[in-house]
């Protein structure tokens, strides 16, 4: 009896205390996650496989950094970020669209919520606080979701969109959002396992989706361009007027088209969908590598394109002679006499050779200018670029110069400065800034 009375007393006392607190102003519950700061990440490969590292820094990281003092992950690959949340592949490598944040208590990246997927996550684009778009490796799979609640908002019906049923892969590898008319431009990548190329079509196809009606609208086609990817974070390149720019890669020479006489579609081009339009401007095809005088280059790349303002963008392009062995192997590839081992060697040379340079692009004038104070970099690996507070954060990997980190470029002064270099943790992959 005594026990019952005691419990009742405690119950009522608790109730009174609870009631009295109603009159006091409520304080916002403190978030478990970091609101501001930077996250620097890397990937390491060894005999034992891959590991991923990501380190949180309250301020912009600087100097020499050892990421292994932070946490290691099975997988860490953010596709995009919004405020203080990251969106990308899950930390355990599962097929999920994973929303991640950084724990205040430990600085570790943790999954906050996720949307399970049947297939591999391809790309993610955050339109606003409550609307996001993602694509998967499923056939023309395009979905809407709420980035705040991670609620799946349904799949866009793309059944009328361009499809190559004979190719195993038909995916949207690059998503561009045009805020002017709330339209989405989804670039199709189609690939057959039977060929050595990464893109198995002769033209570029971009699907136009109206995000107001959430319906597919049409397919924009550009003849004689191929492989609409820029690698890296695949930023939307849309100017203030609403002109959409799509970077296309060409065929890396894998179609046997090498050197200055190769077909136009086999080399990189930037294409344009004019403001207010949903079709390509068939007269606009800008090759920035040719624009810096590398027309005779055997092998051209256009990587990590990112927009600034007033028609100015930045990208990393082929800007130095490739190693003779790489060209020899491309030559073998062109005549279809390359062995599998040589093909692997070619891939390694393409991945790790510091033969690219960051350039400033004038998309209106169709000119390109080398940013002279940035060193050569191996940009084919992870060209993850960012624009924070009007300045550009550009990755540089050059093993012979012991460079493996980020430089900051100020468009106002045209000057670059080295800000951080990773000494332990593997190859630099990204530098994300969290904001409130």
């Amino acid at each position: 009896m005594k026990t019952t009375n005691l419990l009742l007393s405690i119950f009522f006392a608790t109730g009174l205390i609870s009631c009295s607190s109603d009159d006091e102003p409520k304080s916002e519950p403190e978030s478990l996650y970091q609101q501001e700061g930077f996250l620097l990440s890397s990937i390491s490969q060894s005999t034992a496989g891959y590991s991923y590292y990501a380190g949180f820094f309250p301020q912009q990281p600087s100097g020499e950094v050892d990421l292994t003092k932070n946490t290691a992950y099975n997988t860490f690959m953010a596709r995009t970020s919004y405020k203080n949340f990251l969106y990308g592949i899950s930390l355990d490598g599962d097929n999920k669209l994973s929303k991640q944040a950084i724990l205040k208590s430990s600085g570790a990246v943790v999954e906050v919520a996720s949307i399970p997927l049947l297939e591999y996550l391809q790309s993610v684009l955050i339109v606003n606080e409550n609307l996001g778009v993602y694509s998967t490796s499923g056939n023309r799979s395009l979905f809407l979701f709420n980035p705040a609640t991670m609620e799946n908002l349904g799949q866009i019906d793309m059944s009328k969109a361009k499809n190559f049923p004979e190719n195993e892969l038909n995916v949207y590898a690059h998503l561009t959002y045009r805020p002017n008319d709330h339209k989405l431009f989804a670039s199709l990548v189609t690939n057959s396992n039977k060929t050595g190329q990464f893109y198995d079509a002769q033209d570029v196809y971009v699907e136009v989706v109206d995000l107001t009606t959430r319906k597919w609208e049409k397919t924009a086609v550009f003849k004689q361009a191929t492989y609409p990817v820029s690698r890296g974070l695949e930023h939307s390149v849309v100017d203030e007027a609403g002109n959409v720019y799509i970077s296309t890669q060409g065929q890396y020479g894998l179609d046997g088209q090498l050197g200055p006489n190769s077909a136009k579609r086999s080399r990189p081009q930037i294409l344009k969908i004019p403001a207010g339009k949903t079709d390509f401007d068939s007269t606009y095809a800008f090759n920035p590598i040719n624009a810096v005088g590398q027309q005779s280059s055997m092998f051209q790349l256009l990587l990590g394109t990112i927009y600034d303002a007033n028609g100015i963008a930045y990208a990393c392009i082929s800007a130095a002679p490739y190693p003779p062995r790489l060209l020899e192997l491309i030559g073998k590839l062109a005549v279809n006499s390359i062995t599998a081992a040589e093909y692997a060697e070619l891939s390694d040379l393409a991945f790790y050779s510091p033969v690219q340079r960051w350039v400033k692009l004038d998309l209106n004038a169709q000119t390109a200018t080398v940013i002279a104070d940035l060193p050569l970099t191996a940009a084919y690996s992870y060209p993850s670029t960012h624009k924070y507070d009007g300045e550009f954060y550009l990755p540089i990997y050059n093993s012979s110069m012991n460079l493996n980190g980020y430089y900051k470029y100020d468009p106002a002064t045209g000057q670059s400065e080295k800000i951080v270099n990773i000494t332990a943790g593997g190859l630099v992959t990204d530098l994300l800034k969290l904001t409130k």
Partner: protein
Amino acid sequence: MRTFFLLFIFLLINVVAYSQGFTLSGKVKNGEGNAMPFVTVSLKNTRYETASEVDGKFRLPNIPAGDYKLVISHVGFKTFEKDVKILGHVVVEDAVLIDDTKDLDEVLVKTEKQSHMQQIRPITISSVEIKNVVSQNVLITDIIDRLSGVRIRRSSSLGEPSDISINGLRGNAVRVYIDGLPMEFIYPNFDISTLPIGNLKRIDVYKGVLPVDVGTDALGGGINLVTEQKSFNSLRASYNVGSYNTHLGDFALGLANKKNYFVNVTGAVNYSDNSYRMDARIFENGNRIERIKRFHDQYKIFFGGITVGTHSKPWADELKLSVNVSGGNKELQNGARVSGTAFGEAKYRAENLTAVIKYEKAFWNQRALFSTAANYSSQTLNYVDTTKNVYSWSGKVIGRKQSPGEYYEANSDTYIHGWINRSSFTFKINPDHKLLFSNLYARQKLTGIDYLEADPMQDYLRIPQYLTKNVAGAQYEGFFLRRFTFSAAIKKYDYILDGAENNTFELVKKKDGIWGYNTALKYDIAEGIFTRVSFEKGYLVPQFAQFVGNGSDIVRNTDLLPESSDNVNMGVVMSRPVGGILNIATNINGFYRSQHDLIFIGNGVIRRYDNADQVRTLGVEGDLALTFKDAFSLKTNLTFLRKTFTKMKLAESQFLVGTDFPNNPNFYGNSELSWQKPGLLKTEDRFRAYLFYNYIAPFNHITVGKGNSIKNTPEAYVPVQHRLDAGFSYKFVKRSLTASLNVINVFNAKLFDNYLVPRAGTNFNVKLIWEVSSF
């Protein structure tokens, strides 16, 4: 399960009444009249065999009446032989072993090697007699996993492949042999855990130097499964039933006549649903973690074999021919790691035919021994993984994928034909010195059909490819100053690859030869105490698939170099009775491994095996066995090792130098407390109960930096694991029956394999073993 338990109890009650046979007992002494423990005592050409106790006493129970030859042997002593007539209980009082430096005779006179004899050789070996542990264990890997310095990485699914680690070396670096012949040539796609336990006599685990008559191109560790062919009438059958609808049955029938001809017929069937419970994400419930039952992990396999032969002929000490057939199916439930969705349709089927002929003959008054064994095997592996369905861990189909294949898309047959010959010649120069020569020739042919490739001309699998290996070795063993045993060996590894290029299908040839060597020294400090040290420069010739790829996602690399390792072992062994009732046996061994040109498969744009990093392992292992009054026994072993990267290929991976190699437990141990009681229900019967505890400290399952730990990076580590097993066995000697009940993971602890794949919770098995002989 309850039905089986009741059946078990029924059998317990029912079998207590029989009584027949007699006991042969005695005491073994040395020339000074001191008792000799751990001496092997057997009746020649029968299954009756034991070892003397701490006080030198031995006892062979339940022997049918008849004439026998008693054989008592021990390293360093002349073998004692005596004719005995068993008509009643017999006591042998005059078993005196005369001191002699006859270590080497042990091989030449063809008495059976025993686990104890193996363990006192200069090279480091752990050896287990199967009959001592068979009632407690279901799989071969269960037995090996309990040895110091050895870890077996397996999921809890029967039929799943095992990754064996011996003192830090693992994967292909550790070779498995069946009677000295490499298992990868006999059963190319079978795992050691799938082989029936019933036909084995002994398992020898070599932790470093491999003798030339066993080893091939292992890097510094090997497991030799020693089979048993009975040359007397015997019948052994066992049946094991366990959780998850697991049934394992095997039998071995041996028939022999007085003219020394024998026939052995063996068979085994294993089946399991592997339907153990584990935590997994349920896709359709928003990836919520739920407790599920594995639903696509069924495994079944059968083995059958017949051996005919003869022994003790003027022209052959032994000649036998064996033919074995086996086949099985396995469903796949997940890949190397557990992901968010399950596999629901991928499966494979394997069939194998093996024929072995073996001949042995000693001559020149037993000073020389020649043995040769030849093996042919033919194996078909059918792998089917073509579904586009995606399965939730609940078992439901939750959608369809764009591209087929749950693990990797294939519908193929692979045919592997293997030919092996090992010939060995041992010559005793004098009682203290001997030479051993051994040559192993192995050739493998690989071909197949890819049913997904419509054009046969484009089918890479149809191109016949060959890998030939020859490992020749010469070894010297000598005994000096009555305390030192020294051995040294040299090996030549030759290999020829006739393969085909993945892209162009052009035929390619690679040929190379390398020299390796090893040496070992043992010093007898006092009776029962010795120390030993050994060194080996070992090589591992790449396997077929590593050279030529798999015809699909893994491409060839014929530039691959053999992996090599420098291995040093150093240890001390002590075995001593204390006060007549307590015996202490201990073994402490330190080891060092330096591996070069590690073969690994990268995950880049192109997948191929490559030589890359260098790894070093430094560790110590030890075991301690305490036996009290022949009733209580406590066996404990601990292993501590650090396996770290020492050189990295990629510039940006240099930071990993000095960090822990992943998926490699670095501190682990076992402890087993057992109590045995003879005559619990009947005088001759034996009861044994045990508690077995296994501890594994946390270890990283991905590469981590020097600053990482389980505290700041728990996701990168497999957490600490504590497992307790318990069980008992009862041997109804007069009924020739042993029954046992084992409970695995009593406290339902969360256990994982080396890749964080969950293992089963509490599970049970009941085993019955029936064995009769000399009928």
